């Protein structure tokens, strides 16, 4: 056990985490060079494209240290986004140390700080690494200063590296061995293994990723997933060497996988504990919680005939994403669909992209909503994540919405713009500090609804990419909330309804009306688009009638060309949704979803 090191790499998005992981894997010669492709651990296209890790991967690396000692290094990769903080925390709980990566050209950012706090909470050894020192824009001195002042770490301990060129990788490997302590625990103690991830395999079911904290886990053991109180027989245990490699057992301190006939990842819980079924009083490892979705949106197939295919795709998607929750939903405008809950906006984005790309589903997503809470005259509290279930306004005594505490880090010169953005988004209770001269950490309490609505993109824009952001949910606060209906030629489009703060309702409604009027093509008649609260119209826009659509010639005998154009248009029309007599293209729903705020 003294030759095992369990560690993670944590970093702000794009600070080079995956590239460093690649270098470590290459160094261990786990794969032939010709098999190697960049970002080995990011197995999904989207991960590689966006440079983020969505599903974490784990790999066991053999390493011979400078002193000749043979070591086993378990790299536990973590998802790199605020939406997945809980998953990150469970991965960190499986480690004894982290490499804290800081981009030498970007410096410390909001998630670097958040990651440091997480690592400190878990009492981990921290090895700061200044990455990307080969970049012309690298500013090592500035980065050192930030490590000292913003992170409170000793900058002399920071390793200078370039994951891209491989510079510093040897020192990093030595530091892992020397500065991160070996795991503790006893192979003879009652079994306690921490589940930090699970992935779906079509042949084996859920592949449970775990860290054995105490005891020994063997093939053939009867095990219990403690929080769910379900019992399985272990078919296989092993370690990750890019591919799964079976072993006879996993003992305290080791990291690996368990296959035990668990059907899907939804039959497991991240953070749960594996104990022996024979253990009369299995103990749950600390830190376990059920993750709950915070952002909700409905999805509909563009072609209603694709509903069965969408149902099937969701089921398959869910096999590998336990944090997605969904249930059936239906809309007068869009037909049958699903109401889905996500851990955050990125989770939603990734879901949408994967569904479209990997599962070939053409879908329409409604504007994301948070979980609102209403106190009714009857004294009941109801939680509503779907505008459709907005209670009868007469029955509402008080309404509440979730708030977050946002921590925003950015260069001082953007203070005015960032303050303005946060205030425009109904931010309150702000305070700020200068962790280093010239840089501001601004803390703001904001309604979550304002943040899921394009806040991060806006922040990036106004800070020219230098602003970074992290958040945590804090509480519910009382605010007046209205339901806005969007009407197209007098008919409400249920899929476009939304709940909004009363002071923001008119503005939101106007934006939606304007976007729709840009996106809905002209028809042979005039189209009125209105936003309404109850029966009261609060915003409107108009699409004038198309009064000319004809080309002079019908090209002699070349009727084919004209028919083909018509067939193409007809196909386009099939992809539209009809409300009354108005054909609304998918792009209109998408545009409304992406509406940017001023």
């Amino acid at each position: 056990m003294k030759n095992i090191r369990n560690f993670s790499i944590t970093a702000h998005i794009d600070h080079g985490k995956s590239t460093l992981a690649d270098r470590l894997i290459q160094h261990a010669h786990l794969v032939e060079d010709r098999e190697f492709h960049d970002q080995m651990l990011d197995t999904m296209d989207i991960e590689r494209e966006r440079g983020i890790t969505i599903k974490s991967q784990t790999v066991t690396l053999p390493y011979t240290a400078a002193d000749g000692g043979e070591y086993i290094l378990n790299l536990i990769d973590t998802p790199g986004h605020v939406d997945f903080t809980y998953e990150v925390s469970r991965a960190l709980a499986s480690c004894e140390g982290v490499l804290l990566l800081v981009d030498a050209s970007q410096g410390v950012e909001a998630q670097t700080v958040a990651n440091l706090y997480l690592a400190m909470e878990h009492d981990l050894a921290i090895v700061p690494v200044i990455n990307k020192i080969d970049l012309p824009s690298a500013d090592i001195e500035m980065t050192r200063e930030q490590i000292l002042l913003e992170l409170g770490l000793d900058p002399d301990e920071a390793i200078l590296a370039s994951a891209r060129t491989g510079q510093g990788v040897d020192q990093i490997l030595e530091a892992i061995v020397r500065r991160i302590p070996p795991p503790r625990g006893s192979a003879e103690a009652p079994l306690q293994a921490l589940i930090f991830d699970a992935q779906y395999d079509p042949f084996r079911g859920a592949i449970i990723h775990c860290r054995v904290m105490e005891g020994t886990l063997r093939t053939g053991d009867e095990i219990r997933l403690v929080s769910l109180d379900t019992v399985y027989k272990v078919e296989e245990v092993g370690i990750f060497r890019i591919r799964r490699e079976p072993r006879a057992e996993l003992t305290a301190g080791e990291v690996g996988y368990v296959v035990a006939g668990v059907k899907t990842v939804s039959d497991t819980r991240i953070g749960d504990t594996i104990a022996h079924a024979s253990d009369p009083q299995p103990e749950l490892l600390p830190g376990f919680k059920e993750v709950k979705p915070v952002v909700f949106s409905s999805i509909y197939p563009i072609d209603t005939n694709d509903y069965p295919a969408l149902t099937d795709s969701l089921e398959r998607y869910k096999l590998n994403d336990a944090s997605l929750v969904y249930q059936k939903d239906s809309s007068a405008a869009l037909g049958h669909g699903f109401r889905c809950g996500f851990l955050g906006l990125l989770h939603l984005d990734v879901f949408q992209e994967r569904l479209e790309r990997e599962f070939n589903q053409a879908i329409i997503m409604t504007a994301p909503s948070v979980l609102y809470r209403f106190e009714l005259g009857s004294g009941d509290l109801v939680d509503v994540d779907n505008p459709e279930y907005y209670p009868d306004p007469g029955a509402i005594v008080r309404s509440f919405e979730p708030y977050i505490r946002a921590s925003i880090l950015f260069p001082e010169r953007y203070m005015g713009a960032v303050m303005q953005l946060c205030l425009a988004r109904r931010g309150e209770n702000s305070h700020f500090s200068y962790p280093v001269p010239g840089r501001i950490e601004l803390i703001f309490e904001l309604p979550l609804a304002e943040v899921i609505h394009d806040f991060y993109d806006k922040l990036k824009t106004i800070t020219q990419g230098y602003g970074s952001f992290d958040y945590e949910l804090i509480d519910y606060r009382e605010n007046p909330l209205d339901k806005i209906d969007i009407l197209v030629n007098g008919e409400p489009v249920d899929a476009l309804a939304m709940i909004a703060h009363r002071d923001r309702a008119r503005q939101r409604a106007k934006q939606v009306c304007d976007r729709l009027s840009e996106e809905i093509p002209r028809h042979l008649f005039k189209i009125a688009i209105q936003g309404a609260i109850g029966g009261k119209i609060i915003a409107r826009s108009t699409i004038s009638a198309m009064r000319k659509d004809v080309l002079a010639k019908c090209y002699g005998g070349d009727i084919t060309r004209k028919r083909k154009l018509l067939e193409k248009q007809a196909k386009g029309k099939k992809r539209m949704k009809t409300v009354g007599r108005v054909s609304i293209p998918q792009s209109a729903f998408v545009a409304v979803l992406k509406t940017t705020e001023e």
Partner: protein
Amino acid sequence: MNLSPETDRPEETAFPAGIYVHIPFCATKCPYCGFFSVTGENDPGRFFDALGREARLRAGDAGRSDPGGRPIPDTLYVGGGTPSLAGNGRVAELPDLTRQLFGLRDGAEITIEVNPDDVTGERLEVWRGAGFDRISIGVQSLDDAELRALGRRHDARSAVRAVEAARDAGFASVGIDLIFGLAGQTASRWRRTLESALALSPDHVSCYQLSVEQGTPFARREALGDPPAADEKSQRDLFLEADRVLAGGGFEHYEVSNYARGRAHRSRHNGIYWSHLPYLGLGPSAHSFDGRQRWWNTPAVEEYIDALETGAEPPGGTEVLTDEQLLLERLMLGLRTSDGVPLDLVMVYPRGEEVLEELSEAGLVRIGDGRAAPTAEGFLVADRLPLLFID
């Protein structure tokens, strides 16, 4: 959807009801023209030989007479390109050749397309003598500044002379083509052209809205931020102006772009296309249709000639239309004409009745005599109308 409405199937006509011959040569290329033509050095002799070969080749597939013993084709249309060019003297052989290979009904409509500056008394005699009885003159405008902007070789005076000469030469039907919708063209200026045209007492007037075709000099101008064509609103106004002025002059607006002095002067040949009857096209880029299949020749003149010189069919393409496509074409073509489409054709579409009602309420379609036909406002959105029926 029932795709085989028993009613109003075009009366079963054997192939082909009409014959089109494409003469691909032009003296110069007009900057707005997207039709296929070639300019400069060419050898009309080789081309006409090849054309004759194609005609003989195709005559094998075509029925020469219906069961009543009458020849089938009722029209011959020689278009281009510029059939009237001096080098194209052999167009005069085409009516005889057609009659010989395919037969032509008594009183068949035999049309030649000409450019005003090619029209001479001598040539008119030749064309008349060859059997052409309908002439379509590419007047385009009767405003010299507009003619220059369109890159035409002729001026208004020579256009007027050409029309008068054609009339004098004894053509049974004299038609003129006009183009409207140049950038900056006002309704009053267009009206003057229309009135000058009426003064020539043509039997047929085509008013083509200028559209900017891909790959033309006009398209390049537009890309450079200098749109040669008027905006949509003006195009609309000009279209309606033509409808008013020509109706006042006794013309019926029988197709989006076409006006006739009474039903007898409608283009029977174009009518074949619009009523989805079978036709045979000869020459480069020409299309043919037998009621189920459509095929077309390569537009490349050299390729066309080379193939025929070896005794092969010219290269090209072909498509077999599905029932659904046939129906769509009939709807699409019919809704461009004042005869419109029979109601049961529309009712084949699930939303047919509903859509018709909406269109009728909106004043875009007139319903009567078991047919639905576009109004002038309906013509203006004719490309959109068929789309409404498809769900």
